[in-house]
């Protein structure tokens, strides 16, 4: 039988001037002339700006008029315009993968502008390689997968609350998970907010109520995400609902149980400034308004004694038989809003935190100023409960410090100023407040004016860093600092020292990052895909970030970022199905020996091997198409060469290298 005649390949080469960027160094016309002579090249041309509308039109025209089946564009980096040109060739009827880009800008003109002759030679080599590869390119299909049109928000602070509301308001189902008994997050601890002086709870609790009222939002408090599987549009999440021992439907929030509970422990909500019972409400405005039993400290649970809460509960809401319960949830997108916590300054020995009772943090001070807090709104010295007269606030305690956190936490300057003004206006107009700083960061809207007002109201700003806080001979605290504006060392004897410590990621972030396969920076803040152009996206499609989980920020920035994350998540789930790239890893089943190296190597958990039955023959590795991100690590690691990355096959790469390396007049 006669073999069917192989159809001739028809390649078009398009060389871009990029204005002067390429053309000033590379002789573009000469490159075009060279390309025309390459085998299988049917057409070649140049253009001032290949990416312009006119440039793209000339590609489409050539495809139809010259019947091209492959396109090579010699211009800039594929990072910049690969997508642009793939769309152009697809619109003209070609498969988008029958397009190849030759980078003669970043790789040639920009780095060799002093040697135009050699640069032109190099450009020819690169174009020759691209043509060689183009010959081997194959059409690759796309696939569509169905989408679960709902969103999981992890973290019920102000960022998570805002993101949940925005997604729900667009008509999609949201599950809002918080590990604490109530939503609200750190903002609920703040008492007042800068620079407006709004009462934090007064602006937060309406939002919390809105979340509770919205039928599209399911709130899961006292719950933690323990497992995440799947991919964009199709995540399967396991959530552990911790035993609360109080029935949410029955509890009326009367508080009789807490009043009678005999166990008192340190209240972590008040940063250890007060006590709470073993059965408690996180804070008075908690949502849901359901009490919770802390099983570590409840003596009924630990020692089977007591049980008085059950006896006094008028609603019969207490049930000691509750157990942790895992539930499975399907969602199309995930928003991570796990927030931050205050840095623990115990390690900074020179400030004596943890050693001297009257050295506290700004958040501890805030808790004291809360009318429903541990001291009912009155600031006292923890050592003797007397009213402090002289305050010293130490900025950057552990921040912008190579030994602890080198970064700036952005909120500490303003929160110290806020507290200083609150002390003067609400606690004691005659208080002496020293605020030691190295730089005041008043970057936000209205912040500089707020800072100025504080100076006018008599807060004493001292440009200095404190060397040490010690107990003096009379038992009083003594702080030594240099007022660097006058160059003199001051000795201050403050009644209360308040450390403005920075923010560190919430302790849950590290584990969660591992589960979600997200990247972290060196301080464990989760990393966005691009700091400027993809600030709420992550390297995993379908997972988005907002609030302090991504980095320290104030409330306005957290809310703005939450709304951005909501839009990104909505974009992922608003259509019933999504198309996905299939230029992914592919296993040659005959070559695979089931060694499992690829499974270890894959950063996305996109490869699986079915477990061998006893005595049976193992199944070859298979790629979960929707999860594969085309990174190629598996292909490089596979010892038998069974895995290849489509669109980057060994044949294609060898031919491209061959094309680049051969002499310009040698045949390819």
């Amino acid at each position, binding site marked *: 039988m006669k073999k069917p005649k192989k159809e001739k390949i028809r390649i078009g080469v398009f060389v871009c001037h990029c204005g002067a960027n390429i053309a000033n160094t590379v002789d573009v016309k000469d490159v075009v002339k060279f390309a025309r002579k390459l085998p299988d090249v049917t057409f070649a041309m140049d253009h001032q700006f290949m990416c312009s509308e006119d440039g793209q039109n000339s590609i489409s025209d050539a495809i139809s008029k010259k019947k091209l089946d492959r396109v090579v564009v010699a211009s800039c980096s594929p990072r910049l315009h690969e997508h642009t040109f793939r769309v152009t060739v697809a619109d003209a009827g070609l498969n988008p993968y029958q397009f190849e880009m030759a980078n003669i800008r970043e790789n040639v003109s920009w780095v060799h502008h002093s040697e135009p002759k050699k640069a032109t030679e190099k450009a020819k080599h690169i174009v020759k390689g691209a043509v060689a590869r183009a010959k081997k390119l194959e059409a690759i299909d796309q696939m569509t997968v169905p989408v679960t049109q709902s969103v999981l928000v992890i973290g019920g602070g102000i960022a998570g609350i805002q993101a949940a509301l925005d997604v729900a308001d667009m008509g999609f189902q949201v599950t809002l998970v918080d590990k604490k008994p109530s939503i609200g997050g750190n903002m609920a601890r703040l008492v007042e907010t800068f620079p407006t002086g709004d009462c934090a709870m007064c602006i937060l609790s309406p939002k919390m109520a809105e979340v509770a009222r919205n039928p599209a939002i399911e709130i899961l408090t006292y719950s933690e995400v323990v497992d995440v599987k799947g991919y964009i549009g199709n995540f399967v999440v396991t959530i552990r609902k911790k035993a609360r021992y109080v029935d949410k439907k029955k509890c009326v929030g009367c508080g009789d149980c807490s009043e009678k509970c005999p166990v008192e422990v340190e209240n972590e909500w008040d940063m250890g400034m007060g006590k709470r019972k073993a059965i408690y409400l996180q804070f008075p405005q908690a949502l849901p308004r359901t009490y919770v039993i802390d099983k570590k400290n409840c003596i009924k649970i630990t020692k089977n004694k007591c049980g008085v809460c059950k006896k006094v509960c008028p609603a019969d809401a207490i049930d000691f038989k509750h157990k942790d319960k895992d539930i499975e949830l399907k969602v199309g997108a995930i928003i991570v809003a796990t927030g931050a916590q205050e840095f623990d300054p115990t390690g900074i*020995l020179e400030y004596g935190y943890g050693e001297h009772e009257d050295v506290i943090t700004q958040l501890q001070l805030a808790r004291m100023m809360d009318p429903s807090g541990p001291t009912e709104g009155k600031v006292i010295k923890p050592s003797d409960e007397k009213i402090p007269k002289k305050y010293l606030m130490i900025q950057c305690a552990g921040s912008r410090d190579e030994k602890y956190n080198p970064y700036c936490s952005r909120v500490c300057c303003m929160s110290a100023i806020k507290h200083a003004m609150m002390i003067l206006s609400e606690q004691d107009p005659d208080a002496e407040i020293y605020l030691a700083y190295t730089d005041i960061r008043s970057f936000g809207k209205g912040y500089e004016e707020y800072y100025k007002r504080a100076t006018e109201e008599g807060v004493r700003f001292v*440009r200095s*860093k*404190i*060397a040490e806080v010690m107990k003096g001979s009379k038992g009083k605290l003594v702080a030594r600092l*240099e007022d660097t504006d006058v160059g003199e060392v001051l000795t201050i004897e403050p009644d209360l020292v308040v450390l403005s410590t920075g923010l560190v990621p919430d302790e849950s972030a590290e584990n969660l990052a591992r589960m979600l396969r997200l990247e972290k920076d060196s301080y464990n803040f989760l990393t966005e895909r691009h700091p400027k152009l993809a600030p709420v996206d992550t390297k995993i499609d379908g997972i988005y970030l907002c609030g302090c989980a991504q980095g320290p920020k104030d409330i306005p920035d957290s809310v703005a970022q939450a709304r951005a994350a909501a839009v990104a998540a909505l974009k992922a789930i608003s259509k019933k199905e999504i198309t996905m790239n299939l230029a992914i890893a592919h296993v040659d089943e005959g070559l695979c020996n089931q060694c499992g190296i690829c499974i270890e190597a894959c950063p996305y958990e996109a490869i699986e091997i079915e477990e061998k039955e006893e005595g049976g023959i193992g199944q070859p590795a298979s790629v979960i198409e929707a999860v594969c991100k085309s990174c190629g690590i598996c292909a490089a690691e596979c010892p038998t060469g069974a895995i290849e990355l489509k669109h980057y096959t060994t044949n294609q790469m060898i031919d491209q290298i061959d094309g680049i390396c051969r002499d310009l007049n040698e045949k390819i």
Partner: protein
Amino acid sequence: MSNEEITEQYKELIRVCAQCGTCTASCPTKEVSDFNIRKLVRHLQLELHEDPEFLKKDPWLCTLCFRCKELCTEGLEIPKLVWALRELALEKNAAPKEVRELLDIVNENKSPYVLKGREKTSRITPPLESSKDPKTLFWLGCTPSIKAPNIISSTAKVMNNRGQKFKILKDEPCCGEPLICLGLLDEAKDIAKNVAEAIKGAGVEQVIVPCSGCYNAFTKLYPEMLGVELSGAEVLHSSQFLEKNLNNLKLEKPMKVTYHDPCTLGRHAGIYDEPRKILEKIGGLELIEMDRNREFSSCCGGGGGLPSLNQKMPMEIAERKLSREVLPLGVDALVTSCPMCYMNFKFTATKKKIPLKIFDLSEIVAMCVQD
């Protein structure tokens, strides 16, 4: 060190310093003078440091205690800059005249003290005897043997008690540490080479050093600042030797003490634990720590060559430390393990009538052992 070398070598320090003032507020000299170490860096940032008036005064007031480095948020080694400026001042003939005078004394006496023909060991009682064929060299040091011979006799008493054989060098030279502190690095390098030869020539396995200055010179300053390595023998500070040889130590009369970390032994050489372990093991002795201790310990004022240039300031610094940090603890004595700290504290306590006894660590241990 030339001006260009300083600006190049300390480029990062000069640029990074945010002028926050932590260093100045933690500086011992600042407490008794208008010396401001932050301004030293500022002078370099603004390239004002070649002013002879500046070079004559400011670089010479630092005790090289390195406390500021511990507290600096960037961990900048500001005292190293002091060192460089001292070299620059010497090069530009702007150094105080006492610096060159000290060099002459060291060259003439093989010691930073004027001996007028006497032996370095003449005040040590009972006289030391080298035993036969020992594997240990007892390096005496100029300050312990000339100014605080008690330290030598106490250490020797403990060594004899524990059966530790040792020999001493005939005509032991100065280790050169005072010259290094004052920026005379070339001159010190010659001395260091001779010392290295002498120790190698002694053919021993270990060297026991009762002076924290000599110890710091041998283990840190020689290799890091002069490029001279001592080879052939392990160098031990006497506290390290004592800590290994502790059994049944008990004081006859109970005593409460505090321990002063010498800058040269602590922040420079990193020895904090051994002296404390010794004190904690002694029966009848109670150790009460000062608020500032270990890395954060404050300087006695006697370091960095300051006593060679100014006799008043070291005492004023020591007086402040004793009255502010030590007296409120209600202790009977202050124990240290550096002859400079020992001398400075002892002299200050006597002169200012401060009711405190001052001991070297070796004296306390010697009290617990029989002759």
